């Protein structure tokens, strides 16, 4: 019950920070103030909030769960690749977005695309694809909130009520605080994440009697020794993951966050410290996930290991639904919670509950981004702002926040989480495939709106195709590959336990490469659509 009280206290603090703290004025905010915090965030809040906006529930819970099942490879797949690609994309693309936003008053990436390529409805198509790819994250967050509150209250708070409470808190501070409130709450949450990692390693390590013995025991067993290497995955699979962080800068909420910095100089600390923040959060998460394999004296973890062992020995002969049940039983998504239950004192368990809640509430910036995009890219663009004024525009944004939260909540009550887990998995690939749009807009004079449309439509079709393969072909046992489409005697598209594959790569690789290819080819074929020199002069100039 103490854990639940700490989580509720955390929700209260988040609500207070988001709504009341750091409010600049009591008057009605204008669109830039509400959606971009008046482009006035300082360096510390900019770093912490941008980093927090990039961190989802996966960074604490999912990373440990993945490491529990797959070993140390999790860090290389998801953390160290992001530690290179995300700061570089902020350095190269984020700084230019910031400058263009300052100079031209852009509030969303689509506004920039419309201006850059002199297009209207094609921008709407880009908006639609971006919005559809973003919605599953919001639904997942509602589900995570419901599950977490139910877990920390020992079932006293039902799932539907937990989801409603978390939705109301997030909606409250996004509705009243806009970008300023969201940024400060994100900064607070990131500070919690950063604190948790080191404390958890120290306390759990001491509880386990030191990690040296745990690692030696894992190495001594043939079934767990591979978890300390990467021998179970292919280098092509590992390489594929380096394409995933390209999605970060293409996510609308990250693009919008880039516009909130007061000065360009605020990006300096952000790009230098971003890899350090990754290290501080991901290294403990991954290491503890791996070490949990040695925690056989914790009953819940022992049951997971038993389910995994059964799956490995009898899995191929089992029916698919029985295999799925065992997979769910062996899943390590709650392994950190179980470790804390087994080894840590109550105060750490309570702090962890608050951290988990912070992680599942990471949908705030996505809700605000969707609202910003709707009001700027649709409402204002199609004449709503000029007809009704800026106050109505901000009001529309707030109404949209309420509606999207309500819709996400209702969907979360009705639909199984697995569908949205898959949707978010492929949303990353989708946003990576949209990243050539940003590169072409900012660095290639000859790119055209038709190239942008081709890349956008390709992304939408590819995401649907991959999701269809994933849904219609059941997941085979680990190590088995089901051919889906072959050509010239080789398997081109296949279905493996980890998802759909293309020539041994994750779909994100061909999706991104073909998207870039289409951007180039279609732009070359439509030279008459190259924007006028007056437009290009705003994007390509010598200092």
């Amino acid at each position, binding site marked *: 019950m103490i854990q639940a009280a700490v989580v509720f206290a955390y929700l209260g603090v988040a609500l207070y920070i988001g709504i009341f703290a750091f409010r600049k004025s009591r008057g009605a905010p204008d669109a830039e103030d509400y959606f971009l915090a008046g*482009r006035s965030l300082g360096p510390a809040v900019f770093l912490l909030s941008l980093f927090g906006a990039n961190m989802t529930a996966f960074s604490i819970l999912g990373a440990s769960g993945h490491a529990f099942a797959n070993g*140390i*490879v999790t*860090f*290389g797949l998801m*953390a*160290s690749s992001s*530690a*290179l690609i995300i*700061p*570089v994309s902020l*350095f190269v693309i984020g*700084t230019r977005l*910031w*400058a263009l936003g*300052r*100079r*031209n*008053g*852009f509030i969303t990436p689509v*506004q920039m695309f*419309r*201006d850059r390529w*002199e297009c*209207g409805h094609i921008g709407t198509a880009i908006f639609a694809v971006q919005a559809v790819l973003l919605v599953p994250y919001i639904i997942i967050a509602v589900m995570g909130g419901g599950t977490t509150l139910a877990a920390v209250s020992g079932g006293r708070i039902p799932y539907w009520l937990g989801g409603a409470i978390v939705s109301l808190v997030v909606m409250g501070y996004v509705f009243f605080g806009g970008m300023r409130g969201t940024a400060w709450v994100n900064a607070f949450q990131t500070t919690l994440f950063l604190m948790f990692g080191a404390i958890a390693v120290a306390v759990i390590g001491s509880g386990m009697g*030191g*990690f*040296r013995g*745990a*690692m030696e025991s894992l*190495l001594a067993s043939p079934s767990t020794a591979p978890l*300390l*290497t*990467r*021998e179970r995955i292919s*280098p092509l699979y*590992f390489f594929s993951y*380096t394409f995933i962080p390209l999605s970060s800068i293409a996510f609308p909420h990250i693009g919008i966050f880039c516009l909130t910095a007061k000065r*360009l*100089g605020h990006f300096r600390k952000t*790009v*230098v410290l971003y*890899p*350090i923040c*990754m*290290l501080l959060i991901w*290294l403990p998460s991954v*290491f503890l996930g791996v070490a949990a394999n040695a925690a056989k004296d914790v009953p819940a973890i022992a049951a997971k290991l038993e389910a995994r062992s059964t799956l490995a020995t009898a899995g191929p002969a089992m029916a698919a639904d029985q295999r799925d049940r065992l997979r769910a039983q062996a899943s390590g998504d709650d392994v950190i919670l179980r470790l804390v239950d087994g080894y840590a004192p109550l105060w750490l368990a309570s702090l962890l509950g608050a951290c988990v809640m912070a992680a599942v509430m990471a949908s705030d910036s996505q809700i605000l981004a969707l609202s910003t995009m709707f009001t*700027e890219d649709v409402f204002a*663009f*199609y*004449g709503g*702002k*000029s007809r009704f004024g800026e106050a109505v525009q901000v009001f529309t944004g707030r109404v949209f926040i309420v509606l999207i939260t309500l819709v996400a909540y209702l969907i979360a009550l009705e639909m199984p989480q697995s569908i949205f887990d898959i949707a978010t998995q492929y949303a990353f690939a989708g946003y990576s495939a949209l990243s050539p749009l940003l590169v072409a807009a900012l660095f290639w004079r000859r790119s055209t709106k038709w190239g942008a449309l081709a890349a956008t439509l390709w992304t939408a079709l590819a995401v649907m195709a991959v999701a269809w393969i994933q849904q219609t072909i059941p997941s085979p046992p680990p190590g088995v590959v089901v051919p889906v489409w072959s050509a010239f005697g080789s398997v081109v598209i296949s279905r493996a336990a980890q998802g759909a594959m293309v020539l041994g790569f994750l779909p994100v690789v061909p999706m991104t490469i073909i998207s870039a290819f289409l951007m180039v080819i279609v732009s070359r074929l439509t030279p008459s659509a190259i*924007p006028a020199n*007056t*437009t290009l002069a*705003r994007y390509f*100039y010598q*200092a």
Partner: protein
Amino acid sequence: MRPLTAAILIALLYVLHQDVWFWRAARPLVFGFLPVGLFYHAAFTSACAVLMWVLVKRSWPSHLEADAPVIPVRRRSLDEMSEGGKVGPTSRER
């Protein structure tokens, strides 16, 4: 620093991320408990911070700030695009 040098440094780090040399090795356990593959990627992550520090020091695009006045400008709606033709600069309020 020239853009090409910066690009080469980034590409070099990207290649170093594919550390096939530690693919099957768990030992030595650095500090007695950290598998060498995990230690390598933790060190790689720190190297990313160093690279970004070098880029910030030597290749910072300060011209972007110099050229970015704090001038509120108006974003065009569909009607304005139609009235002014599809080509033309964003209209400024002041």
